[in-house]
């Protein structure tokens, strides 16, 4: 009997030693990140406002800050991240081969990537889409006024198709001037060879900075294609995908509930049950993911809510000055909507 018991205990001990952490969280990726002590995050190799190194070598941008938010949730330290710049060509293979724990790199969520490539998109951090920039002096305020306009764009991309669809659908005529390189198309527009330049809207704001007189150009409100950008993870670790997804949801919920990096301390004393659940005052929501219950407090204290993160990196607080537009909360006419913490 004693022998049997000791064998049983030994086996139990072995099992605990062999998988000490999977018993904790149920996510192999989260366990690996905790054991390593830092998050490995794949970011863009340079995209204004989303991820770019500043002159001091610190990474900044919306995609970068989202990785920091996850690190804050796990370690209470937004700097426990190692950023790996990845190019558009290698990003998917690098994620697949485990170079990083998640890819937060202005990647459009498409069906093929989600299903055929074997990734899981965790949410939409930025609703992008093709837009137009025009010279403000011409009095254009809507893309519907572009009838007969000459439009500059890069050749060989989906932008050409989108323009054709949009103008046909609205019974308008246009003339297309295409260029091999994005910079050439932009220069042609800047020199006045076309009335409008088109590419993804976030790119238009960055492009405006490269023009001689940025203030003379306005970006039209219409978006004529869907480019939802979001973080993605490898398929197969659903619990990890959940964590990434709920870090984003926590930030969106926090904005909706008015919780900011400045007031998160006081908000833990709030009587609003939604806020109490989000901030872990009530319930075991953090622990159910393998994190601590104050996970959302950590995120918001270090990185702010979604709105703060947006304004700081791409919005009015940044040099890009991108309008919230469809990235506003659903309650303010936008598309950002997060399921409740409940």
């Amino acid at each position, binding site marked *: 009997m004693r022998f049997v018991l000791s064998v049983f205990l030994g086996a139990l001990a072995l099992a605990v030693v062999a998988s000490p952490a999977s018993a904790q969280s149920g996510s192999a990726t989260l366990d690996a990140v905790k054991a390593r002590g830092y998050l490995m995050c794949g970011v863009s*190799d340079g995209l204004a406002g989303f991820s770019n190194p500043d002159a001091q*070598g610190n990474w900044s941008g919306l995609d970068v800050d989202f990785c920091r938010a996850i690190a804050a949730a796990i370690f209470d330290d937004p700097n426990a991240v190692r950023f790996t710049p990845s190019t558009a060509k*290698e990003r998917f*293979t690098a994620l*697949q*081969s485990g170079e990083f724990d998640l890819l937060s790199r202005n990647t459009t969520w498409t069906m093929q990537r989600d299903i055929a490539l074997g990734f899981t998109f965790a949410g939409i951090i930025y609703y992008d889409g093709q837009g137009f920039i025009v010279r403000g002096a011409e009095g254009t305020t809507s893309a519907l006024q572009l009838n007969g306009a000459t439009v500059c764009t890069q050749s060989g991309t989906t932008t050409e198709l989108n323009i054709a669809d949009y103008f046909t659908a609205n019974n308008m005529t246009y003339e297309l001037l295409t260029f091999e390189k994005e910079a050439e198309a932009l220069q042609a527009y800047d020199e006045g060879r076309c009335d409008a330049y088109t590419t993804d809207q976030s790119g238009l704001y960055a492009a405006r900075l490269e023009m001689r007189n940025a203030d003379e150009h306005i970006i039209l409100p219409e978006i004529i294609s869907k480019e939802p950008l979001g973080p993605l993870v490898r398929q197969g670790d659903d619990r990890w995908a959940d964590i990434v997804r709920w870090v984003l949801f926590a930030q969106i919920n926090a904005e909706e509930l008015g919780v900011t990096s400045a007031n998160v301390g006081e908000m833990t004393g709030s009587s609003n049950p939604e806020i109490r659940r989000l901030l872990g005052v009530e319930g075991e929501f953090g622990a159910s993911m393998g994190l601590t219950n104050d996970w959302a407090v950590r995120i918001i204290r270090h990185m702010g809510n979604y709105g703060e993160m947006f304004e700081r990196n791409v919005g009015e607080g940044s*040099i890009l000055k991108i309008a919230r537009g469809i990235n506003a909360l659903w309650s303010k006419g936008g598309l950002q909507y997060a399921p409740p913490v409940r």
Partner: protein
Amino acid sequence: MARTSTVSAKPPRGAGPIAWMRDNLFSSPFNTALTLAALGLLWITVPPFINWAFINAVWSGETRDVCMAPETGACWAYIAARFDQIVYGFYEKAERWRADAVFIIGAIGIFWLATPGLRAKRAIGAFMLIAYPVISYVLLSGGLFGLDVVPSAKWGGLLLTLIVAVTGIVASLPLGILLALGRRSKLPVVRILCIGFIEFVRGVPLITILFMASNLLPLFLPEGLVFDKLLRALVAVALFSAAYMAEVVRGGLQAVPQGQYEAAASLGLGYWRMMGLIILPQALKTVMPSIVNTFIGLFKDTSLVSIIGFSDLLGIIQKGNADPEWSTPVTATTGYLFAAAIFWAFCFSMSRYSAWLERNVAGGKAGAGKT
């Protein structure tokens, strides 16, 4: 009274620049047209370039606003603001002295080896080949002697470009020689292996091999066995350049007359001594220009590592170009011009040194290089 020197068959040349120009630039209608066309081309390109790069350029400033004025030329203020990053990448500021030490030891060693007349070349050469890589590695990555660890993901800029290039250059020559000898070996297994390796690597673009090393290799290796990404890239670059080097060296081996082999054999030299003492010195002298040519090609190919996400010289400049704080109409152009200037400086010095070496060393008594 007899004249002792020979008289040139050519009519005597006039002296002075006008005569020189008549002789060299306007000697025939065709040459005159060529000269004028070339001058025209220079007139169209050079003054605007000088205007842009120097006269209208902005040399100092803290923000992008200094480069936003219309008609601004190159924005050197942007390069100045990011100069540290261009040299060191993301290497921590407090630890940069370690990178500096590596630069300085390397520069002194190369200078010593490259300058004729300095003594103890053999010892210095051995130091540079064996001790220097170890010292550099320990200094750069740390973890020993109380140095903080700096992960290789933080190495970048010119530092990384030089690491990749020097590793490739230093590893490819011995590997290439071995592969070339193997390819001409009488042992079928060695020969077939070497031919297989060389032809496989030469049949695949470098970017494919880098991609393979950086992204696909980890999929094949057992879980948990992870090599540093930079190490994988370095091995890929070294193997790639070794295959090219092997073909260059093989060319040299084939240029050594059969009599040399027979003479060496008749002296009773074994295979390695025959190769080391008789054949390889002649073969390598013959192909010196091609070897340097391969080195120069390799140096420029290192910029391909930016495609697998490394922040080498070109990669770090491309990342800098995306910084909205310095986004201006001239930022990207200035960045690329600066990268080109650095690459040119290195490649041009290599090519000049090799030309000098040919004149003073390779041309010597073997004479195989000059035919």
